[in-house]
């Protein structure tokens, strides 16, 4: 297990105001807006037309590309329109707009999958429409489609290290048995011997619950993680639970691990048991501007404004100045509240002006706090300087691509420099440069080939 050494991180204020609050299902909205790009990879194509009647769990969009996940209707109702507009990702996307009829009829196709082999299992995972629910939205079927013998550890990620968010905690308390069952099924079909459940030590009740379920079992172990952000990041939790290093550009399977979020595993188990694909999402709605902070089960495609309304709306006399999707460390601010909830969202946080002000940036004093905070042992201040100089070679030398955007550097910087933002831009710069280099190399190879072909022609003559 863990080698005794730990990766660095920062101590954050947990602010888990909704800890232990049960997840309640949300009242159906009037309309849902389901975008076609809710996963990393190629966007799906709509399979329904305007005017069609759809039911809960019905397949409404799919894609042939290997890296993709199908999309199912989260409500029953009629397809009102298929339109292109901007989604919360900041890009325009095709949206299927469904007018809810309130009956919530379940589609005929929803029945438990029959699984007899590993291939069946991987196909079932794809059919469930599951993506990494922790926030990365990486299609789960790709993650689970491993080579035989490649993976020996299945890690269940219940760290939930981001402040404010408590849905995974609530889900663990309510559905621990199902999560363990799901893990055992996955381990059986994928031939994985060892399971680890990583939970941060600030959730002792969840740890106790899993320990009581797993008492006497030796296939799955509960690993108590320290209360240091970011324990839930993929690379960190792999190191903390198995002692293995996952370097940039590699997948967890390359070091013999699969990391799944606890809610992903729960949804997978529910799909295997009932056949209902991923159509709802657990979310924490919190922040100092929300009247009734709580954990909610939301149909995918619900507008954020409808969700906020369901949670009692905004406190009286408070003006919302900042809306975050996800936690305050890695979450994304959005400019309006009329965006739809996607598969990857796990929190909606609304804040008033006191939390929305960016402090004035001052000069770097080379104190090294960002270096001390970085779990990946990078030098954020150096990266920031190299980005300002647009020095791509130096960025590569300082391993900018290793950064996982956890935000520890920005959090710990006393000069209030937006280090993480700069590093994100720097990564885009490096990726652009890589593309250019690749295109150049391809063009050169093509030219060389043509020259060779011409030469051969000349010889033949």
């Amino acid at each position: 297990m863990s080698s005794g050494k730990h990766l660095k991180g920062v101590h954050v204020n947990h602010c888990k105001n909704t800890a232990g609050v049960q997840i309640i299902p949300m009242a159906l909205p009037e309309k849902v807006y389901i975008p076609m790009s809710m996963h990393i990879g190629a966007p799906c194509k709509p399979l329904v037309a305007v005017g069609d009647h759809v039911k809960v769990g019905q397949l409404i969009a799919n894609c042939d590309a290997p890296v993709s996940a199908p999309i199912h209707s989260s409500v029953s109702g009629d397809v009102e329109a298929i339109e292109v507009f901007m989604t919360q990702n900041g890009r325009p996307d095709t949206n299927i707009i469904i007018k809810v009829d309130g009956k919530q009829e379940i589609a005929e196709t929803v029945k438990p999958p029959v699984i007899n082999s590993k291939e069946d299992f991987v196909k079932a995972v794809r059919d469930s429409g599951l993506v990494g629910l922790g926030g990365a939205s990486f299609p789960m079927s790709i993650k689970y489609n491993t080579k035989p013998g490649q993976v020996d550890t299945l890690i269940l990620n219940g760290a939930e290290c981001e402040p404010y968010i408590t849905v995974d905690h609530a889900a663990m308390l309510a559905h621990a048995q199902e999560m363990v069952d799901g893990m055992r099924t996955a381990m059986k079909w994928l031939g994985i011997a060892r399971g680890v459940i990583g939970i941060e030590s600030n959730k002792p009740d969840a740890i106790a619950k899993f320990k009581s379920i797993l008492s006497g079992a030796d296939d799955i172990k509960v690993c108590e993680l320290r209360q240091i952000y970011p324990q839930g990041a993929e690379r960190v939790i792999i190191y903390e639970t198995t002692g293995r290093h996952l370097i940039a550009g590699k997948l967890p399977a390359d070091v013999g691990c699969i990391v799944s979020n606890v809610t992903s595993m729960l949804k997978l188990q529910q799909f295997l048991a009932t056949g209902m694909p991923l159509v709802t999402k657990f979310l924490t709605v919190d922040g100092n501007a929300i009247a009734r902070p709580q954990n909610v089960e939301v149909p995918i495609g619900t507008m954020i404004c409808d969700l906020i309304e369901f949670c009692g709306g905004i406190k009286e006399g408070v003006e919302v100045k900042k809306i975050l999707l996800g936690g305050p460390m890695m979450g994304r601010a959005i400019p309006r509240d009329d965006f739809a909830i996607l598969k990857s969202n796990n929190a909606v946080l609304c804040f008033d002006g006191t939390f929305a002000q960016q402090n004035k940036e001052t000069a770097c004093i080379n104190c090294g706090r960002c270096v001390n905070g970085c779990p990946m042992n990078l030098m954020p201040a150096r990266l920031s300087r190299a980005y300002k100089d647009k020095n791509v070679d130096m960025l590569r030398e300082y391993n900018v691509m290793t950064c996982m955007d956890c935000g520890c550097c920005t959090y710990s910087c006393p000069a209030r420099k937006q280090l993480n933002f700069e590093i994100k831009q720097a990564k885009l710069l490096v990726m652009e440069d890589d593309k250019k280099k690749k295109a150049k190399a391809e063009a050169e190879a093509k030219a060389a080939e043509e020259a060779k072909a011409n030469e051969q022609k000349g010889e033949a003559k």
Partner: protein
Amino acid sequence: MSAFVTPVLLTVVVGLIAAVLLAVAAKFMAVPVDETAVKIRECLPGANCGACGFAGCDDYAAALAKDPTIKTNLCVPGADGVAAMVAGVLGQEALDVIEMIANVQCSGVCDATKPEMDYQGLKTCSAVKSFFGGPGTCKYGCIGFGDCTRACLYDAISVCNGVAKVDRSICAGCGACAKVCPQGIINLVPDVMRVHVECSSKDKGKKVMDACKAGCIGCKKCENTCKFDAIHVENNIAVIDYAKCKNCGMCAKECPRHIITVFPKPNVKPIVHVDEK
């Protein structure tokens, strides 16, 4: 006495040896220099702006000296004067330079359009572009954080009232600003063309109306007015065909949104003072 003689002698001897060594080195280790390239380089302005498509003035001069097929009129900032001198050095006929000038196709100043959000992140256009396409209501217009200003070697472009503005008397037409603009709204246009559509929004009329007081709504009034068939509405935006435009400015008078601008006649460029003796 010897306290003075010894050091003086020593210095003189060391100096002599070094001089001989240097003279020998200069003779045997000399790097061959292309005389033509040096002469051409002297003609070029030396701003290293890259408008010619080469890495800088030295690179362009070397390429000209080596390859006779490379055109002598590529230096846009140097204009006709430099082209004539370069052609003179190479013994070729002088070619005309089409003077270019940068034009920002946006008139969405702070009074015309309002920001959609209170953006507090990194204040560069390329960074904010990755965040919901920019803070403005219009996603096509100038972001106004001045990436172009920082790229300009001549201080010819500045952000005034939220929109980048080109000082046409200074702009050398090198295109450095056009390369860095993430919105792609800075275009290089021939200096002689004086009528330009100052909007880039490809949104439909209603959306533009809501977003900006100074946006093209694609009403086609300009298209119907033009006698030379030079302006057309494509993708909800008026586009001028510079091959046909006669600078009459009739479209500008008709435009209900006042976004077609007629600039005064082009000035003589003051940046490069070429002695045309």
